[in-house]
């Protein structure tokens, strides 16, 4: 038995090479995206069928939640409520951004709630009790989170204790640490005009701020997409059709302006939202456009492959947990800012679950290797919408827990089913 090595493909090769000088030879079975807008629609349909749902379920879910609460209570979809929700979600959202990093590795960090409480308490103690300079206290309290996360990462990566166990220990330890430094009185009120309180209480009341940001975001998106496309065309690799970029830009622009109008109807553009968006942009950039981000994804895909590719697995793991700790601390400061105090309840109870739920509901896979930091935004919008909607209805927290639990379950079911569908569709 010998294998015939001059089959049809080899014979047709020269013809193909000449005919397709610009377009490289492609597999005939390939579902190539047709050029132009029709191709875009086709691709979208195919992705949906193949279970490549992306952010679709959570966006649809969010719209359904909003529709339900609006029909129940006219106050839900008001500029004031919307603006309040936007500010309230930043604390949880920031911590969820850190959780997305950890989930990308396929690991979990249970300590972020406690660490966020420590950061708020540490700031209050340093700034209020000991009169330390505000900015120094802010930086130090954030670094507390970084160090805490790095310790978890070290024990996990170097000693090999499962992340679940390490961070469970961290959850208890840091909660105790927070109670210890808060001392006997338990609650420390923050300076009402201080930086930290202003994080959530400051609004850019000039209407130009919100509109200006909307313009900058939209134009920035268009420029980066357009210039990126030009580079791709120049290099002769497939690029998106211009129509697709325009459609995406218009959609983003409409969304940005609607949000800006809503903010301006109330107190203006909240500082907290600007900071949150800036961190989301930054982390998204780090994950998708830098070698570091590629390493994080690689570890989520296959640790062995990463190791063989020369990636320092331990270092990446430790750094990811340090990032999670850092974002936990930043989030903790926003939480303290919202209530203008550091108290014993910070970061305890259902808070941790809400954070993890936000990351997962947003679409970050629990199985590692799939997710974006924007997921944290979408997920936390769902969580906060449910909280506010039920609070408006005067429904007590037991029901709130049950509903959030149900939403979380639905999300992980979608995650698991998506993985299966993608496997069978061959596009995991």
């Amino acid at each position, binding site marked *: *038995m*010998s*294998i*015939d*090595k001059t*089959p049809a*493909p*080899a014979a047709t*090769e020269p013809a193909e090479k000449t005919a397709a000088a610009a377009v*490289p*030879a*492609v*597999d005939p*079975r*390939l*579902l*190539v995206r047709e050029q132009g807008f029709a191709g875009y629609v086709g691709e979208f349909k195919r992705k949906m069928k193949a279970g490549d749902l992306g952010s679709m379920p959570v966006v649809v879910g969010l719209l359904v939640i909003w529709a339900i609460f609006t029909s129940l209570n006219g106050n839900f979809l008001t500029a004031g409520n919307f603006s309040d929700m936007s500010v309230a979600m930043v604390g949880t959202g920031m911590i969820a951004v850190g959780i997305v990093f950890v989930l990308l590795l396929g690991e979990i960090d249970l300590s972020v709630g406690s660490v966020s409480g420590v950061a708020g308490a540490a700031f209050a103690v340093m700034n209020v009790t000991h009169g330390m300079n505000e900015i120094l206290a802010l930086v130090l309290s954030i670094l507390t989170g970084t160090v805490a996360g790095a310790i978890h990462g070290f024990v996990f990566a170097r000693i090999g204790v499962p992340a679940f166990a390490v961070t469970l220990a961290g959850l208890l330890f840091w909660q105790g640490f927070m109670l210890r430094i808060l001392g006997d009185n338990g609650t420390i009120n923050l300076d009402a005009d201080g930086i930290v309180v202003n994080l959530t209480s400051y609004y850019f009341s000039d209407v130009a701020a919100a509109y200006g940001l909307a313009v900058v975001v939209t134009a920035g998106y268009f420029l980066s997409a357009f210039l*990126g496309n030009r*580079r*791709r065309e120049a*290099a*002769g*690799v*497939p690029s998106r059709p211009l129509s697709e970029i325009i459609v995406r830009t218009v959609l983003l622009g409409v969304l940005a302006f609607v949000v800006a109008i809503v903010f301006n109807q109330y107190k203006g553009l909240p500082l907290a939202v600007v900071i949150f968006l800036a961190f989301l942009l930054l982390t998204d950039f780090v994950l998708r*456009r*830098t*070698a570091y981000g*590629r390493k994080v*994804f*690689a570890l*989520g*895909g*296959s640790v*062995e*492959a*990463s190791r*063989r*590719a*020369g*990636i320092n697995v331990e270092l990446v793991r430790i750094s990811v947990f340090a990032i999670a700790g850092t974002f936990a601390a930043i989030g903790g400061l926003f939480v303290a800012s919202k209530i203008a105090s550091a108290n014993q309840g910070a970061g305890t109870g259902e808070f941790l679950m809400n954070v993890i739920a936000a990351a997962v509901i947003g679409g970050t896979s629990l199985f*590692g*290797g*799939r997710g974006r930091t924007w997921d944290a935004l979408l997920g936390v919008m769902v969580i906060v919408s449910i909280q506010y909607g039920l609070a408006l209805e005067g429904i007590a927290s037991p029901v709130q827990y049950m509903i959030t639990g149900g939403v979380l379950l639905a999300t992980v079911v979608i995650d698991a089913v998506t993985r299966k569908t*993608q*496997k069978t569709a*061959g*596009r*995991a």
Partner: protein
Amino acid sequence: MSATPVLALRGVSKRFGAVQALTDVELEVHAGEVVALVGDNGAGKSTLVKTIAGVHPIDEGAIEWDGRPVTISKPNDAQNLGIATVYQDLALCDNIDVVGNLYLGREIRKRGVLDEVEMERRSRELLDTLSIRIPSVRIPIASLSGGQRQVVAIARSMLGEPKLVILDEPTAALGVEQTAQVLDLVERLRERGHAVILISHNMADVKAVADKVAVLRLGRNNGIFEVKSTSQEEIISAITGATENAVTRRAARTNGEIQK
């Protein structure tokens, strides 16, 4: 074919505790030559490959690279010499696309940022020169078939412009069509002047692409054959270590039945 072999093993021995895994093994690979390394399970194929790849340093003997004696004590040494190894478990990240996997750990950067356009352009170029057909360089590895993953893994090893490529059972677990694709690729590597060591259990594959067959038996050389002038039976008897074995008995029996 050049006179000096790219890689030459001279009397290589390797022990693991009480087990003598390799004894006085000789092997030569020239540029533009495919040497199939065959042998039964436990014959020492994997150990031999791992000594070349730097996973297990040799105990005795010498390794010559382009005629110069070299020591290979860790995987990096082998890589720096220009030896690329594609192991059976391909070590690709399922969730990352083809371009990302090709450049994993050696990403092209421009001012600190991943230069995706350049990586994609070069990936296409590389896959084109190797005539590798995959649906798209921007789909995750998970979407590819086993054969496609194998060729991506081999292409990945080609990025460092190695002089010697070691393929560990590249066609195991592949279908007929996919096997043919991988064998085509092996031939292309030879045409481009790479030296190739191919570990295989499949005699048809060996006959199809190899120039020489080096047989290992119980950790020792048991013959090096020119593929063109050697029959499959001869290779098999070298692998099993006897002219009288299960395979020949079966052949004789069926021949006998035909004669009846």
